[in-house]
């Protein structure tokens, strides 16, 4: 599998106190651990993104725990109330411990 790639849609500018929507998507098969290999009959081991975190200027603003019932290429959208300029950091945690992250800057005026 190719290395999971995240996509982010977040505004670059906002006014103070505005509640902005952030959309995220990451490529990942989200192997549920419920499927069997058609040839061998063996259960394909679970391998999913199990957590997603969004921080703003180092402070956690939104977090999600995912189970195998989340669709492949997990999509997540949520809201953030912004008070000052800064930087978002988005982090996805894989079952194997690998983390994938992406940053996005925001100017508040």
């Amino acid at each position, binding site marked *: 599998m190719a290395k999971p790639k995240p996509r982010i849609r977040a505004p670059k500018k906002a006014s103070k106190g505005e*509640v*902005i929507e952030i959309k995220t998507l990451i490529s990942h098969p989200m192997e*549920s651990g*419920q499927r069997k290999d058609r040839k061998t009959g063996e259960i394909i081991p679970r391998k999913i993104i199990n957590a997603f975190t969004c921080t*703003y200027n180092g*402070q*956690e*603003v*939104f*977090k*999600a*725990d*995912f*189970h*195998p*019932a*989340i*669709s*492949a290429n*997990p*999509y*997540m*959208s*949520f*809201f*953030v*109330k912004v008070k000052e300029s800064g930087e978002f950091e988005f982090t996805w945690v894989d079952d194997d411990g690998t983390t994938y992250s992406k940053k996005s800057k925001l100017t508040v005026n």
Partner: protein
Amino acid sequence: MTSQTKAEQTGAAGWTRRRFIITLGAASAAAAGLTALPGGAAWSAEDAKTVEEEIKRLMGGKELADGAKIISMDLPQIAENGNTVPLEVSVESPMTEADHVTTVHIVADGNPRPGVASFHFSPLSGRAQASTRMRLAKTQNVIAIAEMSDGKAYMTKAEVKVTIGGCGG
């Protein structure tokens, strides 16, 4: 809720499209029978054990009040494909330091593993709303449980029918 006329106009698939939105005053049949858990006989005995286990895992034995009036779930009434069912959940709350939603758990009572996701909010969220896409193995109830900063918890649910395709290909 989308009106029948509109639904027929937009219903590409011949069946009508009526989004299942449970909000203030729109408490539907699916939500109406809902009372506090555990102990509700709202779903089949076969599934109940697993769902109750999941809810117990998430909530301990905490009492869950009827959340139909404050939790909204936007789900297709009929899902074209159970692999990718869009879900939007939102909870009415001022989202202040003193009064906000801390977590929303999503549980699906007909999946082999009922857990779907938990969304953790903070006053910095501004709005207790999140969207994702989930897998539903069959027609079943999607349950949302909201935990509040004052320690209270609410629950509601909505049924999604999952169609069995003819030409899988």
